[in-house]
């Protein structure tokens, strides 16, 4: 098992390199890198453009720029005063030495920017994930146990509705119902935007109150999908021979359910959750935008439209590492859940 883990980790290194090269090339071709310097006219022109391109190192060939990103430029000379002759040492140390660079847009170190937003995203996504798992398991299992009853049929219908709902529609619908109309009619309501109210300050109460609608938006759609999946898995497992044997032996229903059926039905769910966990850090772009939740999804989008290479690379590499790590973790979890699976 130990050898398996080490082998997987070693495989991850060239994988991450390849990912970083592909992503770098894609981002370089994505748009005007100086768009964040422009005002309402949308374009930087003329002498300012030439100067900025030189100062930001954008006139170098693409492989040089990638190299600078990777290992920094303090070992080479760059041209600061525009006379065409490189004379000053650079200041960047490169990703391999821990320097993710500075954002072109905000002038902050990328690590600092990510660390500011990561807790907010994790709060939102982990809460949503817990809610999704809890409700999906509950609904999936109970639906499977009562197949074709009125309970099952209602939730089947609701699942289809929930799953087909576009995220913006659901989010705005919840905002209007719970934020605008309930407030107008004097009933208890939920806030429309942000993480907390300015006049009340950033307290846990405020954050929880503001968390409800975004988590509901994220959860409803995923619960609809996952509960269907769990339901069909449970139905399949419940029909198996060994369950019939267990029942014939006279075991309690609860034992049959949790000790035998669920463990087997859980494997595909673990795969799904494992995939989800890897992407938790990426945040949920649309939800965060509509609720103005300051998270990683929005950070990525805001800086993607401004073609801010260091930030985009930083976030994407972080997500890549996270996905690779959680894939590994999921694979290892299988060995605990299913004794038939063994790795060398």
């Amino acid at each position, binding site marked *: 098992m130990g050898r398996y883990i080490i082998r997987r980790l070693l495989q991850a290194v060239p994988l991450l390199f390849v990912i970083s090269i592909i992503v770098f090339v894609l981002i370089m071709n994505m748009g005007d890198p100086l768009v964040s310097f*422009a005002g309402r006219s949308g374009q930087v022109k003329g002498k300012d453009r030439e100067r900025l391109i030189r100062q930001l190192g954008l006139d170098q060939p693409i492989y040089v720029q990638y190299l600078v990103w990777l290992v920094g430029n303090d070992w080479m000379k760059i041209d600061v005063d525009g006379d065409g002759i490189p004379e000053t040492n650079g200041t960047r140390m490169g990703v391999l030495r821990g320097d993710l660079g500075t954002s072109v847009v905000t002038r902050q170190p990328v690590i600092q920017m990510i660390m*500011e937003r990561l807790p907010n995203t994790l709060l939102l996504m982990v809460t949503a994930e817990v809610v999704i798992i809890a409700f999906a398991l509950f609904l999936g299992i109970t639906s499977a146990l009562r197949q074709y009853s009125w309970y099952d049929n209602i939730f089947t219908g609701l699942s289809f509705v929930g799953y087909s709902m576009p995220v913006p529609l659901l989010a705005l619908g919840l905002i209007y119902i719970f934020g605008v109309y309930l407030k107008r009619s004097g009933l208890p309501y939920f806030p429309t935007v942000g993480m907390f109210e300015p*006049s009340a*300050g950033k307290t846990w109460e405020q954050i929880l109150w503001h968390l409800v609608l975004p988590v509901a938006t994220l959860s409803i759609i995923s619960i609809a999908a996952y509960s269907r999946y769990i339901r069909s898995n449970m139905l399949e497992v419940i029909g198996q021979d060994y369950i019939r044997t267990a029942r014939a032996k006279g075991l309690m*229903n609860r034992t049959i359910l949790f000790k035998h059926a669920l463990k087997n039905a859980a494997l595909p769910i673990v795969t799904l959750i494992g995939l989800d966990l890897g992407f938790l850090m990426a945040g949920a772009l649309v939800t965060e935008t509509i609720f103005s939740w*300051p998270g990683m999804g929005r950070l990525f989008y805001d800086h993607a439209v401004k073609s801010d290479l260091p930030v985009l690379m930083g976030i994407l590499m972080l997500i890549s590492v996270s996905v690779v790590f959680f894939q590994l973790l999921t694979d290892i979890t299988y060995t605990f859940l299913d004794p038939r699976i063994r790795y060398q």
Partner: protein
Amino acid sequence: MTRVFTKRPIVLVALAAILLIAAACAPATAPTAAPAQPTAAPAQPTALPAQPTTAPAPTEAPQPTTAPAPTQAPSASGNKVISISYTQEPNNLNPLYSNQWFMYNLQDFYLATGLITFNDKNEPLPWIATEIPTVENGGITPDGKVITFKLRDDVKWSDGEPLTADDYVFTYQMIMSDKNTVASRDPFDTAVEKVEAKDKNTLVVTFKEPFAPWMTKIFSHVNGTVALPKHILEPVFQKNGTIDNADWNRAPTVGIGPFLFKEWETGSHLTFEANPNFWLGKPKVDQIFIRIVPDDSAQLAAIKAGDVDIGVFISPSDVPDLEKLGTLDVAKVQSGYKELWNFNLSTDEATKGHPALQDANVRRALVMAVDRDKIDQELLYGLTKPALTFWDGMPQADPTIQPIKYDPEGAKKLLDDAGWKVGADGIREKDGVKLKLRYATTTREVRKNTQAIVQQQWKEVGVDTELINYPSDVFFNSYGDKGPIATGQYDIAEWSDAPNFPDPDTSRWLCSEIPSDANPPGGNWEFLCDKELDALFQKQAQTVDANARTELFHQIQKIIADKVYWVSIWDDPDLWTISKKLSNVKFSGATPFWNSYEWDKSQ
């Protein structure tokens, strides 16, 4: 199947109950007990002068009256909070590093060190400068090349250091330094020869040639070249070799202005707190809260729910709904933009427009054939109407220009007289060429609707149209990037444009700006070269005297109106919403928050 969860319904009911209780226990948004207001409000500054004329006669700078010591401690901070919703987050808080609108207008709060500001009528007022320099008061030399600014001597940074001319010289050095990646050096790299501090309160700027737009471009809030705190940033520059990564760029804790920076939580909000030592008196409001709401619909919901007091860039289609609420006012703020038609007047083989457009009468007929007032009524809810000149709403606008009236019969006559006769298929033609025009614009819904109406009205006078739409990042590409308009692939193009507001200067009609292989970034996308017009534009850029300059612009506008070089479909003001709880809120198109120290809010 036996029942596993007999308690199931109770579980569901319990969950629902928990949710409702959570909502009910939500803390109230309004503070429950408003602390008592201080009995002695800080004295009001005397009102800014009511009639600044277009010729900047020396006006009195605002005089702070001595503020009596309040007899009671001021109410707890965070009591009166005005919240503004921003759909874009500012990039950072150092105005040298971006020209982003959402960033540079915050300077009116925390870095109000511009020499001259603009009021809600876009008239200039002295701010840090004690008076607006003119030739009469000796501020400008007769040859127009040297401008001397006398600075107020009672303005201090929030840490007690006085604001002096050295701060301005330092800012100039930072802009010109190769080690700083500032967004733009304009106009310091092209027009300015040197910037000197003659003494602590006298700033002298020497130009290479007389530079007419100095009011909006030299140490002005409008282009973000305001004074930075030398005593904070010079040590950073000397230590790091650059001020690119200074902490101050993100957290400008030392500032000057009615509201000082308190905190910025990225992605969420910025807060600014009232400055008790502001030189015009402490503002009446305690805190400004800028909330980042990136989604337009979410912003609308927040405005309707009353979660924000001021909203910006509202779309016209939302205005009727908002006005029905009765809790807010919608303000139209002129910021220089006009939705306009450009005519492709190029005769060059690669970029040429339809030959009919070379005739001014044809251009006039095309405008007469369209009922622009009706378009504005239907598509823009009557919120605006066609502008008469490119400089409407500015002091240089010529009041004698007459609008072109909707007159389809007159249009038909003009076209007939110009030799374009209706052919067998109902479309006009001349010398075998059909009068079919390429009408291009972006993909915005309101523009597509305009195109549809225009196409139909032109058909009635015998003009055929091909409608083309480009996504805006393609539409606005320069000649060098093969942009469709810049390379002349159109006959009539529609978009929204402005002069260098609030300065009337513009280079869009200069012969030297015609895009070509030799000049890929050229901005004259009408390919127009009218010698008389060109000479006037070049002259106004060097005419420092405001009256003479206005006179030149009147001549310019007459030529443009006569020859129909350009026409406006509608005036494009910015739409702001202001909650009715607020008072004294007036926005300027140039420096939006110029009078924030006078804002007040009732609870």
